[in-house]
């Protein structure tokens, strides 16, 4: 069954390829041993900056291209129900097309892209104009890199190594996943046009305080 649309996969792989290129060029700038080995800092710095600009530009273009489809995906990713909260507390709970961990990873990845862009622009222009230089810009840029690396390692482990989850990679490359795998890991996911015999998923319940009529303030 289809899990990721072509535009979702395009967004993922543009992000992934851009990030890896930026990681490699960034590490050459960051690690003294690699800086010495490559030596051409100005060239690498220019490559790093302009590929970062291109990365964010292409990501923005794909988002515009995706239109309503990606807006719907964003809605899925930003919405957490009771089962998501249970899942995050390491309890068994049925998940939708994205589990709660994938939602957090996607949200942080999007926020980090914005912050990488802001801090990268400040580093670039700050070197040429002191009005754009802040003492903490490099700390923000480096901190983002460390946290992103941590998330990336976990992401790669789950996508490539962990037996229970690595089937998901097929969804992000070819677009579809096995029905039985989806039923097991994403029991609440109900794609349009697909009928699956699955255990009944729990429905979100409105837990806002319910007042009996007698308790309502009288006007």
């Amino acid at each position: 069954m289809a899990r990721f649309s072509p535009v979702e996969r395009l967004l993922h792989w543009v992000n992934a390829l851009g990030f890896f290129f930026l990681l490699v060029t960034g590490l050459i700038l960051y690690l003294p041993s690699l800086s010495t080995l490559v030596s051409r800092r100005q060239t690498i710095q220019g490559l790093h900056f302009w590929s970062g600009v291109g990365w964010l530009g292409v990501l923005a273009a794909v988002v515009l291209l995706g239109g309503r489809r990606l807006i719907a995906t964003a809605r899925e990713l930003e919405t957490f129900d009771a089962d998501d909260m249970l899942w995050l507390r390491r309890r068994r709970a049925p998940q939708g097309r994205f589990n709660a961990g994938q939602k957090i990873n996607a949200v942080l990845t999007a926020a980090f892209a914005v912050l990488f862009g802001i801090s990268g622009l400040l580093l670039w222009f700050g070197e040429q104009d002191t009005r754009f230089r802040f003492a903490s810009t490099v700390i923000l840029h480096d901190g983002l890199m460390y946290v992103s690396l941590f998330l990336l390692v976990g992401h790669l482990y789950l996508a490539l190594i962990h037996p229970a989850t690595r089937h998901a990679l097929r969804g992000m490359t070819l677009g579809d996943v096995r029905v039985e795998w989806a039923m097991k890991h994403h029991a609440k996911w109900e794609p349009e046009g697909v009928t699956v015999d699955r255990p009944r998923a729990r429905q979100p319940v409105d837990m806002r305080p319910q007042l009996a009529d007698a308790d309502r303030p009288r006007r």
Partner: protein
Amino acid sequence: MDAPPVNGEPEQEPRRYGRKLFLATVAGGVTSLYWGKAAWDHVTGVISPVASAVAPILPTGGWRIYTISGHMPDFDPATWRLKIGGLVGQPLSLTYDQLRALPRAEQITTFHCVTGWSVKNVHWAGVRIHDVLATAQPQSSAQALQFVSMEQPYVDYLTVRQASLPDVMLAYEMDGKPLPREHGAPVRLVIPEMYGYKNVKWLAEINLVPELEPGYWEELGYDQDAWVGRSNGYS
């Protein structure tokens, strides 16, 4: 009355926590431009003993290597010379061995980069500038020193008074080893009270000049007097 729990767990309606997380992360990141350095300094101060133990095995050692040209200068002991010229009575051309034969000085100081990072407790060894200049006999009209790097066109200046600060040195060793190439081998200027861009690497010449002039980074808007914490917008 609350909604009945399912499987003993309270239920709630779907919430857009993702949007809040996104906005909070971006807001936290942007505001960290103002508080990040202070927070980081506080954290490293608290975990200082741990940080000291871990630092040697970290790939960066805390340093970032900045260069301005396409090629990091190479050091050849056979051909390298440190030239002392300008307003001096006796121009000099010192070999590496001659420089190392001058009175040795050592110090442990913190290196601060104007971009915000610092490396604490760097162990430098080298020579004091007055020991280098003594033989060259500076003229009384000399008010500043020009430091010329092998990495062209990098150049910077200090006043004679600044260069006479007690912990200013020409360093040829760092942390017990000959100065590595990426740190300016064979000799770099070290002036801990000023940001790194005044600490000229790959030194080739020192010229006595009548007055201070803007160096490479000063031409790009950085402060002439790069006092740590008191220049370049820091206060």
